């Protein structure tokens, strides 16, 4: 009898200790935990290749599109960024133009641009993180800043997001030259994927909203949104990214992500 009570008592004590601990976890810690769980759900994908169509719309609804291929090589070390290679197919006049990036976490990325008309490889400055990526509503940093340690975090609340339940987490860029003071991300509690991101500009005003839709699960469980829609609330312009099928385990290596390769992609 006594023993049972003691066991029961210690169980209650332990439980309240756990409860206390999780209460003691600051919103910052909880925010990081949620972001880390989301980021790490993607660990180990190795490499991937995907073709996509980028549809740009201006405020009058006029459309123009670009097609491109993105190859990515995962660098397992969380303190180093991934490598990526973007190759343009259309518009025809920029066919063969390619952008090679070696992402860093807090420092500027190393980037090279290949201009096929002159067959020229140019090392370019990557401080322009907030600048538009090829005329779209996506900034360079929106493409590259998915590394966990590029931000600090703060948990806000849980709430419904469509059919799912989401954790709402604020994140603040740690890297230099960001165009944002903060972002608010809705991360679902089932598959831990980012569903919506609000971007706040340097003045702290809401500038853009990104919706990530049509998530598909590939291979061992890597989730990829097949459609990304970015709306700029100030300019009323928008950009949609419509992805084709991702290919994982393509066998890409470090030597596929060197500047000497840029003239050999076509």
């Amino acid at each position, binding site marked *: 009898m006594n023993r049972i009570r003691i066991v029961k008592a210690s169980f209650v004590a332990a439980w309240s200790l756990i409860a206390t601990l999780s209460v003691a976890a600051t919103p910052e810690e909880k925010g990081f935990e949620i972001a880390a769980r989301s980021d790490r759900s993607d660990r180990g994908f190795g490499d991937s290749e995907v073709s996509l169509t980028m549809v740009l719309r201006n405020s009058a609804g006029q459309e123009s599109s670009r097609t491109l291929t993105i*190859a990515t090589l995962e660098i397992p070390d969380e303190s180093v960024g991934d490598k990526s290679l973007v190759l343009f197919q259309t518009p*025809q*006049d920029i066919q063969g133009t390619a952008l090679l990036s070696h992402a860093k976490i807090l420092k*500027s990325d190393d980037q090279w641009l290949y201009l096929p008309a002159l067959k*020229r490889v140019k*090392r370019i*400055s990557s401080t322009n993180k907030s600048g538009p990526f090829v*005329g779209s509503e996506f900034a360079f940093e929106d493409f590259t800043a998915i590394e966990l340690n590029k931000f600090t975090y703060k948990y806000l609340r849980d709430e419904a997001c469509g059919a799912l339940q989401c954790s709402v987490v604020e994140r603040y860029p740690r890297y230099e030259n960001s165009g944002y003071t903060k972002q608010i991300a809705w991360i679902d509690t089932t598959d831990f994927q980012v569903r919506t991101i609000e971007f706040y500009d340097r003045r702290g005003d809401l500038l853009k909203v990104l919706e990530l839709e049509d998530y598909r699960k590939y291979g061992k469980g890597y989730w990829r949104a097949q459609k990304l829609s970015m709306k700029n609330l100030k300019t009323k312009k928008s950009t949609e990214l419509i992805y084709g099928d991702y290919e994982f385990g393509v066998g890409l290596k470090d030597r596929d992500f060197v500047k000497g*390769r840029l003239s050999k992609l076509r």
Partner: protein
Amino acid sequence: MRVTSRRCPLLAILLTAITGPVLADDDSSWTVSGNVGLQARMFTQDPLWPGQNPDRLQLSLSGELEFRWRGAEGNQRASVIPFVRLDEIDDKRTHADLREAYWAYEGDTVEVLLGVNKVFWGVTESLHLVDIINQTDLVEDIDREEKLGQPMVNLAMQRDWGLMNLFILPYFRDRTYPGEAGRFRPPVPVDGDNAVYESSEGQSHTDVALRYSHYFDAVDVGVYYFSGTSREPRLILSSDGSRYIPHYDQIGQVGLDLQYTKDAWLWKLESIIRSGFQETFEAAVGGFEYTFYGVSESATDVGVLMEYQYDNRSMLEPLTFSENDLFVGTRLTLNDIQDSSLLAGVVVDTKTSETYFNLEAERRVGSNMVVQLRARVLTDASPGEPSYPISNDDYVQLQFSGYF
């Protein structure tokens, strides 16, 4: 990465049929693309020399086809790119060239490329000093950025410590020069078809080049040695004084290109040491490009460029316009859907105050057309200066190019 769209099935089938025996491959793919251009040059003055066509408007048409092939395994590729221009005034500007016609095989760390190709080296904007593999297609553009296809055997080796490139160049291409009716020529035309070569082998002299390139953190570096026929000729007046004859000397050239990329700064240097004809001389061009990103809350980037050109060659060597010249320029990039951009600059000779103004702007129209504007103006060129003969050839050029 592979591009598998077949834009022109008929041509693709034809090409596969032609190359089938050599490059038989079930999943291999040809792609065909190209462009057609209509170009109008409007000169602001009458020509300076007898024999030049007095028209101030010069129209021409150009066309380029790109056939590209990639083997099923992904490690073989081929390319064939014929180019042609038809010019209403200058019969020497009406010309055709194979820009590319090669086959390449990529191994794990080594690549072999056989055939005709274009290779660009360099970092600066106002002058391309180290670029030497390809001959300049001067009738295309006086900025010397258009190049003729160069036959080569290219062996490339990529290692952790950098990229080594060996070029064996078995055939020399003559520089193209405007004909008698054309602009941008000396008082009498250059007879580009009857050149004289220092080497007894003439155009069959085999040139070689070895280049190392890599990057170390924020520094990109390239260094090479070239031995062979100079791409730049000396122009010697013929005995009857009716034309200039290009003389191509044998040279040895060491070249270095460096770029340091820090924040919005690009610091650039190109330098060569050339020995050969009668002397050894040095030349360099260096400077910076600084970019103001997203000026006044727009998407527009504004770059400021400054470069200094130095060259200590004597009068015995091929003429240069770049002895002690300062280049100042600006680059506007609108970052819009049409990829609008503008590069404008002026090169000032610090000794003679002769100035050369250059503007290049372009913008896409619709999804398949690009409009390009160029303007080039030379001022204060006095008789005796290397650029004096073209001092009446200021022009504005408008070009419409359709891509398919």
